[in-house]
C-alpha cells in the first residue's frame, strides 16, 4: 500500500479547513495534518511537521510573499505549494503559484489539482527554481492543443478539470517557452508539431 500523502493546510477559516480535510480523507491516500490558521510561524513549523503538500491561502503570506515562498521551497524542495483561493487576490501574487485551488472547484478537480502539483514537483530535479525546462510539458501540450482549437480558458479548465488560474498559468508558460502570443500563432505551432488531428 502506498504511504499516505501528508497535507498541511494554512487557512484561517475553520469551515474551509474541515471541508477540504473531509474531501481529501474521503478520497483516500491523504493524511491531513492539524491546520494552521496563520502563516507567521510556518517556516519554524515546517521542518517539524514535514508535509508532502502545502496548501496555503495566499493572503496569509508575509508582506514579501516571494521571499517567504522561496524560503519554504528551500526548506522542503520536493513539497509543492498550492494556493487556496476564495476571495480576490492580486494578480502578481497569484503568479507566484503554479497550482491553484479555487474553492468553487468541484471535488474531483480539487483532487486532480493536488495530484498534478505532486507529480509536477516529482518530475523536476531539486533545484527547480534555477533550472528551466525549455520544452513544453505534457500538461502544457494538452492546454496548447485546446487553445489552438479555439477554446477559452474557462472551457479548457472545465475540460481538463483544473482551475482557470491553472490554465492561465499554463498558457503563460507556453508563451514564455515558444515566444508565441496569439492564438493563431499557437495554432500554427500545433499544426507544425503534428499535435492536431487533420
Amino acid at each position: 500500500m502506498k504511504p499516505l500523502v501528508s497535507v498541511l493546510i494554512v487557512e484561517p477559516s475553520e469551515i474551509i479547513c474541515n471541508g477540504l480535510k473531509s474531501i481529501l480523507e474521503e478520497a483516500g491516500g491523504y493524511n491531513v495534518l492539524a491546520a494552521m490558521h496563520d502563516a507567521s510561524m510556518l517556516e519554524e513549523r515546517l521542518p517539524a511537521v514535514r508535509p508532502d503538500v502545502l496548501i496555503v491561502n495566499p493572503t496569509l503570506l508575509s508582506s514579501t510573499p516571494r521571499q517567504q515562498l522561496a524560503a519554504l521551497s528551500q526548506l522542503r524542495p520536493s513539497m509543492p505549494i498550492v494556493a487556496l483561493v476564495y476571495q480576490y487576490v492580486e494578480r502578481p501574487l497569484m503568479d507566484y503559484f503554479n497550482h491553484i485551488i479555487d474553492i468553487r472547484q468541484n471535488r474531483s478537480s480539487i483532487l486532480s489539482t493536488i495530484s498534478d502539483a505532486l507529480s509536477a514537483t516529482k518530475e523536476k530535479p531539486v533545484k527547480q527554481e534555477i533550472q528551466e525546462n525549455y520544452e513544453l510539458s505534457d500538461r502544457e501540450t494538452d492546454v496548447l492543443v485546446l487553445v489552438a482549437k479555439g477554446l477559452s480558458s474557462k472551457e479548457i479548465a472545465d475540460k481538463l478539470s483544473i482551475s482557470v488560474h491553472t490554465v492561465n498559468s499554463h498558457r503563460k508558460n507556453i508563451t514564455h517557452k515558444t515566444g508565441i502570443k496569439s492564438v493563431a500563432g499557437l495554432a500554427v505551432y500545433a499544426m507544425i508539431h503534428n499535435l492536431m488531428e487533420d
Partner: protein
Amino acid sequence: MMRLKNVKQKTYQHINTSTYQHIPIMFTAKMKLADIVAANHNIILVLPRFGIPLGFGEKSVGEVCKAANVPVDFMLLICNLYTFDDYLPDINQLATTDMSMLVPYLKASHSYYTEERLPHIGKHINHIASRIEEKYGRVLKQFYADFRKEINDHFLSEEKIEFPKLLSLQQGVRKCRTAKSYSEKSHEELVDKLNDLTQIVYKYLPGNSLPEETMELVFDILQLSSDIQKHALVEEKILIPYINWLERSMK
C-alpha cells in the same frame, strides 16, 4: 504669423527646460537632415511619406522641408517621435504645430505597408511555403493571409472613421461623435502577430531548403514590425490627442 511663431518658440522652450530635461537633444530645423538620418537610419523610410526625395546633400531639415513644401515643425515631430523612446509631445506643442500633413502622412504610411511591404513579405512567404511539406505551407500561408486581412481592416477603419473626423475638424466642422472608441489594443495584437510569424519562420518551419531567403524574410518582418510600432505611436500620441483637443476646443 509673427505671433504664431512666438507662441511656438515659447512652447519649445517650455519643453526643453522642464518636461523633457532627460532628453539631451531633440532634432531641430537647423540640423542637417543627413545628421538626423545618421542618428536614426529608420528616418529614411519616412522621407517618401513626406514627399522628400533623396539626394538632399548637406541641406538642413528646414531647407529640405521648405523645398518640398512640408511643414518643418510637423516633420520634426515625427522624426523626434521615431527616435526618442520616451518622447511625448504635450498638447500645447500639438496645438501650435501645423498638422495639415498629418492625414496625408498617415495615409502614405498605410499604403507603404499595404502596397509595398506586405506584398513583398507575402511573396517570400509563398515561395518558402512552396518548398516545404504542403500542409505546413498551407497553414503558414493561411496565417499570413489572416494577418493581412486583419491589418487591412484596421487601416480601413481608421481611414473611414478617424481620418475624416480629423479632416472635418480641421475645417472647423464638428461631426457627430461616432460610437466606436479608438483601440490601442489592436496595434498591440498586430505587432504580436508579426512577432509570432518571425518565431514560426525561424524556429519551427521544418525542412527548409531556403535558409538565405528565410533570414531575409525574418529581417523584413522585424523591420516592418518596428515601423508599425512607431506608426502606432504617431496615432496614439499625436492623432488621437489632437482630435480630442480639437473637439474640446470647439465646444
